[in-house]
């Protein structure tokens, strides 16, 4: 049997259909707005570390002051041997990155981001292959690109060719879902070719990807690497991830903008719910006065109002989830997908609840001042 308080709450709520619908629409929009902003934030957070996530390196050697993976930076190739000389270092694979111009068969050019890596060891190789094999990339001029960029790069599949810096490149492997949030397509190639595509000197590299020998202590290896290699920074994958994240999310202001959007959504939602709850309470004030007159405690009345708020929250949240999942589905294959995780959904649900209960405050303050003698009037 439904508790009477609950019945009273939902009858109060449904009594004015139009206002109820307006409230729910308000909650839905505000929660969808918050979801999109938070989902973009989480999606962006994931995107900016894709390359680091897909490398098996324990340690990244980079020039001091490198801000993020995409930060063009140069190391001396000779340092590789010093690194390999350190006890416990199983591999130190060079990685070359940089922007280059891709010339389509039609003659137009488009910028690409070249990732040049060894195809063995701890190198950063393309993943999620949808066509071709990693070994096919050993052929001179072989590159791997993502199928989502076919049109942009003027190719239609394996075997098609184009040019980078007047050198012929041929698509030998195709990946699925390796997209960049910068929208510049990634082009995977071997280290030497990548140098010439990006115009990097032959004795330079961007990173060394270090794999620590089994049984060796990563911290100790790092200390020894530091002693042997001046002027470089050595970060664990986790450290590099968080550095990249903080650069993209906060160094650029993108994260702050997304947070501000979410906060705005939250405030707008709170104001909408507060206003409707307040006016609903105003309409039912004489009933609340009657409750008070027949001896109801303040807590009982507040509970009815909070139940109204929570009921709106639950209904609004369900609507918001429905709309958000459509939005999430639509952006799943885009450059910057809106991500929704179970934790996020739970957090959003709690947020909706908090929003609605916070909005009940104005209504409760109003009822707190209620005078039971108003039942005598009329």
């Amino acid at each position, binding site marked *: 049997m439904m508790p009477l308080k609950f*019945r*009273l709450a939902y009858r109060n709520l449904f009594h004015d259909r139009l206002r109820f619908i307006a409230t729910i629409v308000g909650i839905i929009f505000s929660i969808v707005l918050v979801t999109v902003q938070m989902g973009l934030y989480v999606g962006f957070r994931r995107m900016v570390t894709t390359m680091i996530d897909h490398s098996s390196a324990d340690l990244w050697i980079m020039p001091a002051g490198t801000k993020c993976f995409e930060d063009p930076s140069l190391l001396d190739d000779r340092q590789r041997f010093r690194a390999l000389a350190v006890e416990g270092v199983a591999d130190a694979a060079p990685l070359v990155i940089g922007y280059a111009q891709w010339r389509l068969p039609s003659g137009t050019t488009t910028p690409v981001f070249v990732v040049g890596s060894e195809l063995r060891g701890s190198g950063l190789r393309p993943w999620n292959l949808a066509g071709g094999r990693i070994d096919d990339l050993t052929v001179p001029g072989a590159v791997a690109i993502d199928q989502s960029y076919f049109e942009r790069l003027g190719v239609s599949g394996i075997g098609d060719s184009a040019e980078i810096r007047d050198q012929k490149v041929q698509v030998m492997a195709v990946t699925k879902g390796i997209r960049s949030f910068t929208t510049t397509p990634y082009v995977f190639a071997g280290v030497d070719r990548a140098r010439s595509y990006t115009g990097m000197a032959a004795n330079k590299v961007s990173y060394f990807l270090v794999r620590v020998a089994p049984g060796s202590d990563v911290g100790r290896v790092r200390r020894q690497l530091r002693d042997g290699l001046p002027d470089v920074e050595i970060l664990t994958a986790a450290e590099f991830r968080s550095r990249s994240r903080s650069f993209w999310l906060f160094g650029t202001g993108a994260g702050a903008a997304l947070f501000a959007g979410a906060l705005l959504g939250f405030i707008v939602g709170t104001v909408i719910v507060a206003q409707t709850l307040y006016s609903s309470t105003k309409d039912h004030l004489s009933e609340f006065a*009657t409750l008070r007159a027949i*001896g109801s*405690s303040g807590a009982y009345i507040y509970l009815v109002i909070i139940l109204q708020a929570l009921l709106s929250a639950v209904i609004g949240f369900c609507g918001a989830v429905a709309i958000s999942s459509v939005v999430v589905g639509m952006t799943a294959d885009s450059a910057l997908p809106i991500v929704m995780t179970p934790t996020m959904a739970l957090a959003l649900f709690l947020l909706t609840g908090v929003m609605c209960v916070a909005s009940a405050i104005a209504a409760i303050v109003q009822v707190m001042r209620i005078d*039971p003698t108003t039942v*005598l009037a009329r």
Partner: protein
Amino acid sequence: MSQPVVDAVDVVKFLGRGAGRVQALKGVSLSLRGGELVLLMGPSGSGKTTLLSILGCLMTPTSGMVRVRGRPVADLDPEGLARIRRDHIGFIFQSYHLFPTLTAEDNVRLALDVRGERAQRKAARDVLGMVGLAHKTRAFPGELSGGEQQRVAIARAIVGKAPAILADEPTGALDAQNGQAIMSLLAGIARDQSRGVLVVTHDPRILPFASRIVHIDDGRIVGEETGSEAKKVSMS
């Protein structure tokens, strides 16, 4: 004689403010004892509702004292007064104040719900049966006649078995037969020596049920008769 369930001593009450300020009660003392059905009679505007509200702890007097079962209530905050109303008072309002969105049964249950009582449904149905509305438990106030609404309000006031029932014109909207039934119901409550009933009325048909009749005029008690005298008056 049993102790008063509620009593007022030298109660003065000003209502309104500014130019509209009125002295509705000008020093009234009245007690309602267990086992009594007291009628409060007087012309319109004489202060009946005001006195009832003060006895029912809905209003606090400007001066004077109100006691519920011998305990002064002057020092109670609004929450404390609500508790007194919840535990000791059953109030029948002049205008019924039912909840339009709840059925008759739920309206009655509400009085038990605010007291945190269980088994509300059966109690509510029983009391609705007592006021002759067994067939209307699922009706909403909007679907009920004025008299039926009044009886739902009465059911709500008595369902909690409060020791003091304060009724403001409870038979105003009722026909002779229903008025009679309600009054004998209230008289039945007053036969319990721990409970008292105070009824504001203009209705002379009620006189035979009264154990005492108090006359009020212009904010003052102007006379009092016992039930037997009243019966003589009504018969003559």
